[in-house]
C-alpha cells in the first residue's frame, strides 16, 4: 500500500478540491449507508418499545403474560436500541462521512467500517435478545451482558482504526473543530466503556462506576459527536463560517475538562463520600462554560440568517437541536444542585430531562444530518417536502409534550414524596395525567419516526419525482445544490 505524502494545503485549487472531495465521498458511501440503514431500523424498533413501556403506565395489566414483555425488559430494550442502535450508529455514519471531507483524504480501508457496522448490528441483535430473555448485567446503560459487549468493543475498534488512520493521512494543516470532537469521542468512549464493563466492581462501587459511565456515554460520546455534526452542518448550509473558531475550541476543551466528573450527581443522597458528590455537582455547574460558548457561537453564526430556517430542513432540525442542547444542559446543571435534586431525584422529571437531551438534542441533529447527507449518498432529492414537515412537527410536538408533562408531573411527584403527612400513593396518583402526556408525546414521536423511515425507504430506493432542487424549497434553496447566499466580507 502506498501512502500519499501529506500536502498540508488548506485552500487547494478547485480541480484538486473536486478530485479530493469525490474520492472522499466514494470511499465513505458504502459504510455510511450501512450505518444509516441500520440506525433507522433501530430507531423504529427502539421507539416502538418505548411506546409499549409508556402505555404500561395506563394499562398495567397489558402484556404481562410473558416475562419478556414486562416493563423492566421492554424499557431496557428501548434504552439500548435508541442509545446504541439508533443514536450511536447514526452518529458513526455521520462522522465517517464528514471526516474524509474535512481532512481531504479518503477513508482508510472502508471495509473496516463495513465490518464494524455488521458487528455493531450483531451486538444489537444479541444484546436486545439477551435483555428480553432476562440475561442482563443489571446496570442502567450497561444492561447488555459482558460477553456480548466484547463484540461492540471489537467493532468500535475497527471503526476507530479506520477513522484515526484517515486523520493521520490528512492533507490539511489544521483540524476543523468537528474533527476535534470526533477524535476525542473515539478515544473517550472506548475508555469509559471498557472500564465500566470490567467485572471487578460490586455494591456501592458498582453504582459509582455505573453512573460515571451512564452520564459520560452521553457527555463524552453522544454530545461531542452531535456537536461535531452541528459545527459542520450549520456553516455548510448557511455558506458562512462559524462565528468564532476560538470560541468553538474553548467549548471543546471546557467540555473535555469538566464533563467526565458529572455522573455522580445521579447518586446525590447515596452512600458515597461527600467529596465525590460535591466534585460532581461542581463539574455539572461548570458545564455552563462549554454550553454557553457553544450557544453563543451558534447563535452568532445564525444572526441575520434565521430566515434560512424556513427553507432548509437540515438547518431547521440542527438549529432546533442546538437550542435544545443549551436548554437541556442548563436544566441539567440546575438539576445537579442538592436543593433541586432533593425534589426531582426519584421522579419522572429525570426521565423528561434525559429525553430532552438524548432526543431533542442528539436525534434532532441526526435528523438534520440525514436530510443533508443522504441526497449526496444516493444522488437523489428527498421525494416529499410535506413528509419532512410532518416529521419535524410531529417530532418537535412530541418531545415538547413529553418533556413538559414529565417535568411538571415529576415536580409535583417529588413534592408529594417529600411531604411526610401524605401517603406515598399520593405521589403515584398525582402523576397519572402527566403519564398520559408521556404516552401522547411518545406516540407523536413514534409516528414521526414511521414517517421518517418511510420517507427514507423511498429515498434510498430513488422513488418519487425527479427533482433538480430540494423538495422543501419554497422560494430558494439554502442547500448546496441550489443558489447560495453571497459569501460574507471578511470580519
Amino acid at each position, binding site marked *: 500500500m502506498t501512502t500519499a505524502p501529506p500536502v498540508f494545503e488548506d*485552500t487547494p485549487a478547485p480541480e484538486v478540491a473536486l478530485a479530493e472531495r469525490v474520492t472522499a465521498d466514494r470511499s465513505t458511501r458504502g459504510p455510511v449507508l450501512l450505518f444509516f440503514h441500520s440506525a433507522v431500523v433501530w430507531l423504529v424498533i427502539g421507539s416502538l418499545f418505548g411506546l409499549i413501556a409508556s402505555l404500561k403506565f395506563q394499562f398495567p395489566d397489558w402484556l404481562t403474560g410473558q416475562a419478556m414483555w414486562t416493563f423492566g425488559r421492554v424499557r431496557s430494550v428501548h434504552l439500548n436500541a435508541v442509545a446504541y442502535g439508533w443514536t450511536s450508529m447514526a452518529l458513526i455514519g455521520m462522522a465517517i462521512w464528514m471526516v474524509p471531507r474535512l481532512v*481531504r483524504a479518503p477513508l482508510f480501508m472502508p471495509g473496516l467500517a463495513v465490518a464494524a457496522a455488521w458487528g455493531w448490528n450483531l451486538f444489537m441483535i444479541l444484546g436486545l435478545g439477551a435483555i428480553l430473555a432476562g440475561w442482563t448485567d443489571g446496570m442502567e446503560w450497561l444492561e447488555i451482558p459482558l460477553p456480548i459487549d466484547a463484540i461492540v468493543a471489537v467493532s468500535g475498534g475497527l471503526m476507530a482504526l479506520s477513522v484515526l488512520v484517515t486523520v493521520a493521512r490528512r492533507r490539511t494543516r489544521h*483540524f476543523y*473543530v468537528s474533527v476535534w470532537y470526533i477524535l476525542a469521542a473515539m478515544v473517550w468512549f472506548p*475508555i469509559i466503556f471498557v472500564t465500566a464493563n470490567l467485572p471487578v466492581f460490586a455494591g456501592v462501587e458498582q453504582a459509582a462506576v455505573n453512573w460515571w459511565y451512564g452520564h459520560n456515554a452521553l457527555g463524552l460520546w453522544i454530545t461531542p459527536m452531535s456537536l461535531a455534526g452541528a459545527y459542520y452542518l450549520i*456553516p455548510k448550509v448557511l455558506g458562512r463560517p462559524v462565528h468564532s*473558531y476560538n470560541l468553538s475550541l474553548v467549548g471543546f476543551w471546557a467540555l473535555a475538562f469538566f464533563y467526565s466528573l458529572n455522573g455522580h450527581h445521579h447518586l446525590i443522597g447515596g452512600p458515597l463520600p461527600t467529596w465525590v458528590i460535591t466534585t460532581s455537582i461542581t463539574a455539572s455547574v461548570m458545564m455552563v462554560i462549554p454550553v454557553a460558548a457553544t450557544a453563543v457561537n451558534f447563535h452568532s453564526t445564525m444572526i441575520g440568517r434565521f430566515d434560512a430556517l424556513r427553507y432548509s430542513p437540515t438547518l431547521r432540525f440542527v438549529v432546533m437541536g442546538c437550542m435544545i442542547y443549551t436548554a437541556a444542559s442548563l436544566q441539567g446543571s440546575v438539576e445537579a444542585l442538592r436543593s433541586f435534586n432533593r425534589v426531582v431525584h426519584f421522579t419522572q422529571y429525570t426521565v423528561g430531562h434525559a429525553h430532552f437531551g438524548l432526543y431533542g438534542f442528539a436525534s434532532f441533529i441526526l435528523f438534520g444530518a440525514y436530510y443533508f447527507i443522504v441526497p449526496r449518498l444516493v444522488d437523489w432529492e428527498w421525494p416529499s417536502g410535506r413528509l419532512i414537515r410532518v416529521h419535524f412537527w410531529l417530532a418537535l410536538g412530541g418531545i415538547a409534550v413529553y418533556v413538559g408533562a414529565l417535568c411538571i408531573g415529576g415536580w409535583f411527584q417529588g413534592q408529594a414524596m417529600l411531604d411526610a403527612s401524605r401517603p406515598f400513593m399520593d405521589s403515584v396518583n398525582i402523576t397519572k395525567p402527566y403519564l398520559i402526556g408521556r404516552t401522547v408525546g411518545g406516540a407523536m414521536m413514534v409516528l414521526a419516526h414511521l414517517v421518517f423511515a418511510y420517507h427514507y425507504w423511498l429515498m434510498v430506493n430513488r422513488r418519487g419525482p425527479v427533482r433538480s432542487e430540494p423538495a422543501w424549497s419554497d422560494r430558494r434553496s439554502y442547500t448546496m445544490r441550489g443558489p447560495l447566499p453571497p459569501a460574507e466580507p471578511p470580519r
Partner: protein
Amino acid sequence: MNTAGLAILGVCAVGGVIACVAFIWAMRSGEFTRSDDARWLVFDDEDEVKRPEAPRPGPKA
C-alpha cells in the same frame, strides 16, 4: 480508597495526561493561533463560498 475510586481516578489521570498532551500538541502546532485558516476547512468545491483574501498589511510607519 476503594477499588471504584482508584479505578475512576486512574482513568481520569490517564485521560488527563492524554488531554494535556493533546492540548500542548495543539498549541505548539498552531491550532489556536491560526484559527482563521481552520474555520474555512468546512467548505469544499461544492460550496459556492469563496474565502476572502487576507487583508493586506497597512502602510508601514
